């Protein structure tokens, strides 16, 4: 086969798209150095700093009640924001990819808004809406509904900043796939739900998974927007990123790095989950891409 011949002896005439070995090695080394400098080293530093005072201090730091409260809050915020944006992303992508309607391009632009707006502004929007001096805030406070400086505010801010991830991942794929398979399913007698669960969803499940993973990573790591709405009440409205900053500002470096390593670990877990799924279902993935 054509694929095995170059390994035997590649004639120089075939080498039109390959570079000299020196260039190849140089490029690879450059890329690796860059990754080492900007990705691996900081992670290593976080771990090293966290463990500098020993394993005992490390565990003390991460089992401290305020830290546990922060972890819990972060997980709750992500657990609410991710499913919300999963449903929203799917419906928006479905609508955009499968139907023609007025204002479609406006909707696509609006979905991207959280990417172009600074997270701090996102936080401020909700503070101005629901805060004590805000538009609906006083009424809410009268009725004993707390949004700002409480869990709902944090969830709202998180939903806002993670809004585009799932939709953005799905729209180009669904547009590319068109509606042929859905039409074929309908002609074969499938109902709307059957078409969705047996045809549409399996076709986009990988993009959906990537979208959810990215969305989750951002939901857990969001700082700016959450910082504005949270009020930094320890043990109540502090998420992990906020907690790390407070510990750092109080010169508790070992503790702050310990919590940081925990947050980094959550990110690593999501990445490993992704790799495992890819490895497990790799062959199916390949068929999905081919037409």
């Amino acid at each position, binding site marked *: 086969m054509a694929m095995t011949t170059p390994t035997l002896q590649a004639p120089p005439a075939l080498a039109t798209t390959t570079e000299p070995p020196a260039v190849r090695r140089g490029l690879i080394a450059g890329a690796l150095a860059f990754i080492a400098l900007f990705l691996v080293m900081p992670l290593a530093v976080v771990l090293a700093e966290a463990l500098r005072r020993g394993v005992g201090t490390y565990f003390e730091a991460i089992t401290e009640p305020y830290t546990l409260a922060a972890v819990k809050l972060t997980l709750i915020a992500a657990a609410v924001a991710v499913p919300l944006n999963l449903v929203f992303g799917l419906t928006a992508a479905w609508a955009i990819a499968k139907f023609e309607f007025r204002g479609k391009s406006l909707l696509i632009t609006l979905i991207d808004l959280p990417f172009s707006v600074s997270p701090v502004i996102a936080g401020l929007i909700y503070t101005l809406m629901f805060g004590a001096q805000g538009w609906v805030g006083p009424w809410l406070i009268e009725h004993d509904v707390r949004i700002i400086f409480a869990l709902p505010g944090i969830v709202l801010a998180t939903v806002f900043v993670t809004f585009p991830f799932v939709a953005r991942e799905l729209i180009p794929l669904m547009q590319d796939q068109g509606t042929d398979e859905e039409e074929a399913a*309908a002609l074969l007698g499938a109902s709307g739900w059957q078409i969705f669960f047996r045809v549409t969803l399996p076709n986009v499940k990988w993009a959906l998974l990537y979208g959810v993973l990215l969305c989750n990573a951002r939901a857990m790591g969001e700082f700016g927007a959450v910082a504005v709405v949270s009020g930094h009440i320890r043990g109540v409205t502090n998420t992990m990123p906020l907690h790390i900053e407070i510990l750092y500002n109080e010169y508790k470096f070992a503790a702050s790095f310990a919590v940081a390593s925990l947050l980094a670990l959550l990110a690593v877990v999501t990445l490993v989950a992704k790799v495992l799924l890819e490895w497990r279902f790799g062959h199916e993935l390949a068929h999905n891409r081919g037409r």
Partner: protein
Amino acid sequence: MSIEVRGVEKVFGNFRAIHGVSLNVREGELVALLGPSGSGKTTLLRVIAGLEFPTAGSILFDGEDAVTRHVRERKVGFVFQHYALFKHMTVFNNVAFGLRVKPRADRPAPEEIKAKVDALLDLVQVGQFGNRYPSQLSGGQRQRVALARALAIEPRVLLLDEPFGALDAKVRKELRRWLRGLHDRMGLTSVFVTHDQEEAMELADRVAVMNRGRIEQVGSPTEVYDTPATPFVYEFLGNANRLPCRIEKGRALLGGTVFTEAEKLVDGAGIAFVRPHDIEVTTERLTLSIPAVVRQVLVAGAVAKIELSLEVEPGMIEVALPRGAHWGAPFTAGQKVHWRARTARVFPAADGGAPAAAVEVEPTTLK
């Protein structure tokens, strides 16, 4: 099951894709919708299938209105141009899909589904590929799987959109013959869309020639080829020389010479169509013949193609002679000859020589 298309119109925004089309497909018939791209043939097929809702008109299956019935209740077998196989399912699961989505009460037992799918896969000659994914099949195999999937729900109507469009010439010919056999064996009523006239001629019982959202003519392959109803059909089906002429007293004149009858036509400008193989070429003058000069002779296979230079418009005509006829005394470039049309068809020309529809065809009246 018979299909009746009655005055169907389809408008997309401000584009009218189909203008009041009517067509009858009898039970057991295989009808081709033939036309250039953009002629509305695929849209018409999708309207029949229920994938598009007609703006006006109705579709009747066995005399019963089908427009109000949802796609999934029409029980129509549909084969898409690019097959639209479910990429994430194996071939077996693709074919089983239509059986598995049935409401629980009508759903066959798993063993029954297995037996039926296996039989279908054997029928379309891909029995050994049940566990493969569509991406692991060749174009012809995918086409057959798409067909098996459509047949699984036991449709009485089979609709095919450019069924052989994406296949290479050899596979196309084989599949064509095979599909014809399948249609006859299963007693289906089928409609297929194609832009390939050869395919339509070879496969179909009747051909509906479409142009710009209208059906120009419906008839058997020989009918539409031998007696085209409109200039468009003449030019679209096979080669034809297009000769601008004058009509005077029921005769067509080419550069002052009468060359054919044009009965029942009003005096004025006209367009005559002559097939290359309906032209006689001789060295001596005949009645109704017109002088010309041989420009080029091309012998290709069984046919000798001769290009003649004319002194009048259009300046050149193409003649096809059986090679045997050309053999004895071959024509050579530069030779002075005479030619005449054995048969020709004249249509009145609209302004500027563009042919107008000779007769407004009412498709239902043409059988």
